[in-house]
Each structure stands twice: as structure tokens, then as C-alpha cells.
């Protein structure tokens, strides 16, 4: 079984945000396939239930949380059991030309993509819900340094998270808790489908020189970072984009 593999997640309890769809859901499935026990969270309880019933293995649970509701975070973390890993997969993406950027657009993206994972991590650390040797994985995006037109605020929110993770890693190292980012390019998910209006998903996917990137591909990178195989990896960023960013300054 997975037990003897250095990439096994047996014996580990992992919290996944954004677990009801896309990358988050795929991470939950692969983590459980690798022996991990899941705590799934997202806003929509019925979609969380759907994800839960499809997971192999046992001992998984769901716990809905609205990441737009900052005061709700602390009481939610209080009822959490201690974990060996967290995957921050909840996120939102929007294309808005800079000239049409409103304060509310900035607030929305910074709230979900930056504030929520920061406040959630802060609460979990403060209330000692993250065990020693745990692994924190933050899904960012290659947009953090190669953002195309129309994505300034999205890019900024991801860059903000990336920067914070690099500092966080230095603080948590004393407990052997690691913090890393996984930075995807275009991934075939509902988020990408919703994002696309003027161009097709296929056109965007062509920018990956290795073909379509599926959520499972991102999940595999997350599993590596969660596992003991990555025990010396921290403050790092794993880019998975099929070579999209290679030619981009």
C-alpha cells in the first residue's frame, strides 16, 4: 500500500479549503488515495457532502466555512482538531481591465485570495491546531509574476500571498512546520470556465506546451509537498504550468 512510499500521507490529517470543486476537490481525492484523512471546507455544504461521499478511505469530515466572513474564522478554528497539513485551495479569479477596477473588486479578491488564508493560518497557529512537522500548502498562480492584461488585482492578491508565505515559513520552521506555494498556470477547472468570456478555454490551454493541465496534476504537486518526502522543502514555490511562463519575462 502507500504506507512505505516516501510520498504516503498515511497517519496524516489534512485540512483542504475550497474542497468542493476544482483543484481543492482534486487535492482531497488524491490525498485520501494516498492515505490521508481529510477535513473538507468550503462555503457550500451540499457540494462538500458530494465531495465527501466520493472519497476513498475513512475518517473524513466536512466543516463549512464562509471565507468572506472574517469573524466566523476564529470560532470555526476553535472546533477544529489539530492537523498535519493544510491546503489553501479556495480562491477567486476575475478579469477586470485596470481602468474599470473598483474598490469593491480589490476588496473581494484580496479578501478571498489573501486575507482569508492569512487569517485562517493565523488563527490555526495561535490556537495550536497545526502539529509540529506539518506542511502548509498555498495555491497561488503564475499570474503573481506574469500577469496578462486585465488581471492586475488577481495577480496582486496571489503575489501578496506568495510573499507572506515566504516570511511565514521562516517563523514556523522552529516547529518544523513547512510553508510552500504551488503556482499553477491555466488549469482545466470550473473557475477557468467561469473566467473565460472573450476567449475559449482551449485557446488558453494551448499556452501550456505540454497540453491541458488537469486539477489532478496540481494535486500531485500538493501531495509531494504535504508528504515527508518534502521534509526539507520550505519557503519554496512549485510552478506547474506546462512551460507557460518559460518565455515570459
Amino acid at each position, binding site marked *: 500500500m502507500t504506507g512505505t512510499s516516501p510520498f504516503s500521507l498515511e497517519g496524516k490529517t489534512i485540512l483542504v479549503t475550497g474542497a468542493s470543486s476544482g483543484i481543492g476537490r482534486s487535492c482531497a481525492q488524491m490525498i485520501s488515495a494516498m492515505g490521508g484523512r481529510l477535513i473538507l471546507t468550503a462555503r457550500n455544504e451540499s457540494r462538500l457532502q458530494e465531495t465527501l461521499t466520493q472519497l476513498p478511505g475513512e475518517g473524513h469530515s466536512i466543516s463549512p466555512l464562509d471565507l468572506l466572513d472574517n469573524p466566523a474564522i476564529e470560532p470555526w478554528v476553535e472546533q477544529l482538531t489539530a492537523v498535519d497539513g493544510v491546503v489553501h485551495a479556495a480562491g477567486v479569479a476575475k478579469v477586470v481591465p485596470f481602468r474599470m477596477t473598483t474598490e469593491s473588486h480589490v476588496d473581494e479578491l484580496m479578501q478571498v485570495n489573501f486575507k482569508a488564508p492569512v487569517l485562517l493560518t493565523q488563527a490555526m497557529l495561535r490556537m495550536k491546531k497545526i502539529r509540529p512537522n506539518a506542511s502548509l500548502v498555498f495555491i497561488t498562480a503564475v499570474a503573481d509574476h506574469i500577469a496578462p492584461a486585465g488581471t492586475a488585482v488577481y495577480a496582486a492578491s496571489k503575489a501578496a500571498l506568495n510573499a507572506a508565505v515566504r516570511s511565514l515559513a521562516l517563523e514556523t520552521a522552529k516547529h518544523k512546520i513547512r510553508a510552500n506555494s504551488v503556482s499553477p498556470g491555466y488549469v482545466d477547472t470550473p473557475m477557468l470556465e467561469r473566467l473565460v468570456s472573450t476567449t475559449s478555454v482551449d485557446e488558453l490551454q494551448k499556452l501550456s506546451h505540454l497540453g491541458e493541465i488537469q486539477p489532478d496534476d496540481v494535486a500531485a504537486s500538493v501531495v509531494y509537498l504535504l508528504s515527508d518526502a518534502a521534509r526539507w522543502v*520550505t519557503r519554496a514555490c512549485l510552478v506547474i504550468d506546462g512551460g507557460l511562463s518559460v518565455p515570459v519575462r
Partner: protein
Amino acid sequence: MEALDLFRLDGKTVLVTGASSGIGQSIAEACAEVGARVVLHGRNEQRLGQVLKSLQGEGHGVIAGDLNDFDHLFALVDQLPELDGVVHCAGIDGVAPMRMVQPQMLENVFRINYMAPMVLTQRLLQRKKIRAHGAILFMSSIAAKTGKVGVGPYSGSKAALLGTMRPLALEVAKHGMRVNALCPGIVLTPLFDGFKEHIQQDVAPSYPLGLGEPQDVAYAAVFFLADASRKITGTDFSIDGGVPFT
């Protein structure tokens, strides 16, 4: 495919250069552990034989020689079976202040750390010895991305690998092949034999997670060779215990 299979190398053949010691040895061991057939290359035939004995599984092989001798390199490529992975671990250090470095030393460091892996890669590709969907992995270094007094020649050679890796990644993508580089921090291996005490006393404390073990880099290499990383190409990945100031 089962999830676990994404992190294994069953049915795959991997060439590891610099396999007689240090990180190369550890990578060879880890690849064998997850089911690969490994071809070990290095200069020291006796050491290679010892590593061979320690590998799990079967079907592994040894070829000894100096990659800086291109006659040997070309013959090596002709001898090799088709490969699913190549890990370029052969390398040397190159410490000299830039005001004092001799041209011959610079040339030597570049020949071993950059020319040999690149000429080997060229020859393998030209002779179609790397299968579609194969993975090429260069061993760069944290030194490619940071500055440390005295490390000029080594840093240059390791940064050169990253520079060439990118066009190479785009060139081979049409075959589903991917090319990446690891940038390890300091792992105590024979490469550092001359500096061991200094590193343990003066450098190790600055590593948030301590110094690395060769096995840490080895597992990263397995990830970059396995199907788990099939959509990752043209990247350099830092594996360095989070060290800020080098």
C-alpha cells in the same frame, strides 16, 4: 492510474551521472526504491560497483568513464538503452574570488558543470535515446540564484544550466518531454569535504530546517522524474530548508 503510481518509476529506465557518491548516489538509490531500472555513470568504477550492490530491485547497470572525454561520452550514448529519465549529478565545486580566479579554473568548472551535461543531453536527444514523455533533470544549486563571496565560478556554472534549461524545455515539449532543475541548498556530501567543519559550525545555524540530507534531494528528483510532475517543465525548484541568507 492509481495515485501511488504517479510517484513511482516502475517500468522506467533512468540514467544518473555522478552516481558514485553524494546526491547522485542517493538519487540512484531512491529511483531504484520506487521501481526504476537505473544506469549508474561516474568515473570511479569501484565506487559505482558498491552503489550498484546497494540498489533495490534488478536490471541496473554501471558504465564508468569521464564525461569530459567526448569520445567516451559519444560511446556511452551509443551503449545506453532508451531512457525515461536522465539526472545530471556529476559536478565539482568552484570556489575562487573573481579578482584571483585563473582562466583555466573557470574553464574547468564550466566544462564539468555545464558543458558535460549539455553535450550529453544533446547527444542523447540526437540519438533518440530519450523516450517521449521522458524527464530531464539538471542539478543546479541555490548558488545559481544567490550571491556568496568566493563562489563566483560555481555560481556561474550552475546558473548557466538554468539559462539553457528554458529553451531546451520548449524544444522538447513537442515530445511530451520535460526539463527541470533542482536548486539544492547545502547537503553534506563529499563535494564539501574540504569545508565540512566550517559548514557545520558557521553555516548550518542559518538553515531554518537545518542542513539537508542527500535523500531529501533524491525524493525531489523522484518527483521530477515520475508522472506526478508530467505537466511541470522549464522550472527550477528550490530545495534548501528555507535558508534566507546564504
